[in-house]
């Protein structure tokens, strides 16, 4: 956990800024490091883009699987998945429809990702403000 004094410990994932708190041997600092890192926030844009891409890929793949499998002649392909057109105008189970699905999947994933990140970040911010205020007035963090 504690690194040699000459070489600051950095995040194993990305080396942007040394983890100064982690270099400290003080129990208070280590506790603060754990609290700060356990309450890390989401990158709103990144989560939106990532969930958008996965959403787009899922809807496109769901459509493509049905199209590749095909249906007996005279039978509609994917009548149940096609019901999504009730919510996503322009979508249908066809190759052009799968491109429309790609767009809607991205849009929905983006929206869900941004919403989840917003709720997470706002809730954490409120919790941290409360904790800091309590420590300031009562010293009981």
């Amino acid at each position, binding site marked *: *956990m504690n690194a040699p004094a000459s070489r600051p410990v950095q*995040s*194993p*994932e*990305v080396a*942007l*800024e040394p*983890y100064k708190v982690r270099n400290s041997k003080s*129990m208070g600092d*280590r*506790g*603060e*490091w*754990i*609290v*700060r*890192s*356990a*309450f*890390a*926030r*989401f*990158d709103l*844009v*990144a*989560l939106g*883009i*990532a*969930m958008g*891409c*996965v959403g787009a*890929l*899922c809807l496109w793949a*769901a459509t493509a*699987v*049905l199209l590749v*499998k095909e249906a007996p002649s005279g039978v509609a392909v994917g009548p*149940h998945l096609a*019901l999504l057109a*009730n*919510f996503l105008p322009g979508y249908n189970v066809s190759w052009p429809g799968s491109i429309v699905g790609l767009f809607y999947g991205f849009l929905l994933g983006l929206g*869900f990702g941004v*919403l*989840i990140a917003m*709720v*997470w970040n706002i*809730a*954490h*911010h409120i*919790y*941290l*403000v409360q904790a*800091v205020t309590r420590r300031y007035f009562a010293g009981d963090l």
Partner: protein
Amino acid sequence: MLDDAEGKVLNAAIRVNTIIIAVAMGLLCGAILWSSTAILLLRGGPDVGAHLSLLSVFFPGYSVSWSGAWIGLLWGFVYGALSGIVLYWSYARTLHERLCELLVDSPAASTLTPPIFLFSGNGLGIGLGTLMALQLLLTTNWLVARGTASESNNAALLSQYLPGYTVSFSGSIVGALELFAVAFVASHVLAGIYNTVTRLRATRDMAAP
């Protein structure tokens, strides 16, 4: 290794995070079910929401009506919150103290602006995979237990995506394993994109004057 006191702090933080993600996912799922019902009701037409109303098999009291939409909001909240708890709990338990290392710190980070969270593809894969596999097991076996497995034509359509899946106990095991694998791969894609974009944005912020 964390000592006892540090472990307690981390576990307390995980509990708070679990509540937050449960509320977030509960609100999201409740809103999705409410708005899906509302869209169908506003569009109108004969036999409105024949397929969506099948959710009443799992959510007693739900129907495609205005009163059903509000019951759906409650059920959606419960379902989303439980899903959030299983997802975050299994993610955090898989990583535990590594949870504190998957971060991007920046000069802007302070007590009130914590560092940014990075995903572990494996941790997320196990969390999401467990959640989705559990959901498929529970829903399929609920249909089996109530004796409507042979009539569950819509559920059986999942075999289009999960070969070997049937509305039976053995079929649910096969489907759950396949769904776990799909969720695991999707989680790696999600984690990869999220971590890349986060790093790019953090590097750009660091370079900014």
